[in-house]
């Protein structure tokens, strides 16, 4: 078995699929003209392809969208609830920090105050960003989930 065979035999499928660059394709074609093993292998692979081609038909997909919209409504409610809980926690943290005026207390060392202020920022800022992101999610979910049936039916006749 020569080197060319070792290199080119694993490319027979890519050759069949038209996935080789022109130079490689020419190499495989030239090799096929001289190698009986690869010619036989190519014929075997083609026979397998023909058998598989018989599976082209599948049952028609059901209309996925009505059920999808129902599930998205539930997801919208869950996301809104999560966002609400996070917003509540953020507000509580803000309130606690304001009540204690912890950052302004002169009796605490500067480093301690800076540490508390950083922790506060680390917790509250991403919390607010997450709430805003969840709010956008809820808006998209609600808009899609309550999209009118007329729009769904006229917008997608592919299924």
């Amino acid at each position, binding site marked *: 078995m020569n080197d060319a065979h070792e290199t080119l035999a*694993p*490319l*027979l*499928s*890519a050759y069949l*699929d038209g*996935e080789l660059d022109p130079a490689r394709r020419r190499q495989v074609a030239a090799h096929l003209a001289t190698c009986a093993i690869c010619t036989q292998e190519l014929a*075997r*692979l083609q*026979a*397998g*392809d023909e*058998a*598989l*081609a*018989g*599976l*082209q*038909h*599948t*049952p*028609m*997909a*059901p*209309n*996925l*969208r009505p*059920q*999808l919209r129902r*599930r*998205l409504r539930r*997801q919208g409610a869950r996301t809104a609830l999560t966002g609400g809980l996070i917003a509540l926690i953020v507000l509580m943290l803000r309130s606690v920090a304001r009540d204690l005026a912890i950052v302004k207390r002169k009796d605490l060392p500067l480093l301690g105050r800076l540490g508390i202020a950083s922790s506060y920022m680390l917790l509250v800022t991403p919390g607010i960003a997450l709430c805003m992101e969840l709010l*956008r*999610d809820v808006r*998209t*979910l*609600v*808009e*899609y989930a*309550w*999209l*009118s049936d*007329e*729009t*769904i039916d*006229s*917008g*997608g*006749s*592919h*299924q």
Partner: protein
Amino acid sequence: MLGVALAAAPADPAWDAGLPGADEALVAAFKGGDVRAFDALCARYGQPIFGYIYRSVGDPALAEELAQDVFLKAFLHLRRTATDTTFQPWIYRIATTTCIDAHRAAARRPVPVHDEEALALTDDREAGDPEQRLMQRERRRAVHRTLDALPAHYRQALILRQLQGLSYADIGEALGISVEAVTSLIHRARQAFRAAYSQQQETER
């Protein structure tokens, strides 16, 4: 209310499935807040994704449920994808992961057996005399059995290439592997299928 307002707005002509870049236009519109664009994507990819999942799991009811899972995940994550994400391989990747998870969840279940009623329905769509149709059905059943008995990664690679018609680059994105790895995987999968199919035919003789 909201739905009526959306229904009144005309769809963008760039969304036409026949136009190049239509998927990109739909994804951009969805990211921009137009939810009708997702509906158009759902209409366009509903049948191919259902077909892919059905061929992977062999059960139309389960395929429907999993296809809904795929579009639900797509809806929730599409807005956050990178701008250069191509929708087709991206949604096939979600479908592949969903199928793998479903197979893992049902690990103790026997390999998928394609629904006889669904096979009969696909046969009925074909022309030809009853004897010919019966032979075709038997042949298709044998192919299904062979495909179902292959390792999952072989089966998925073959379905994506042979039945869904994806390019090697898109299969690579869908499976999370390089094009070189796809070339090798598809070749080994084809050889394995051919060997198993021949063996099955000899056993049945």
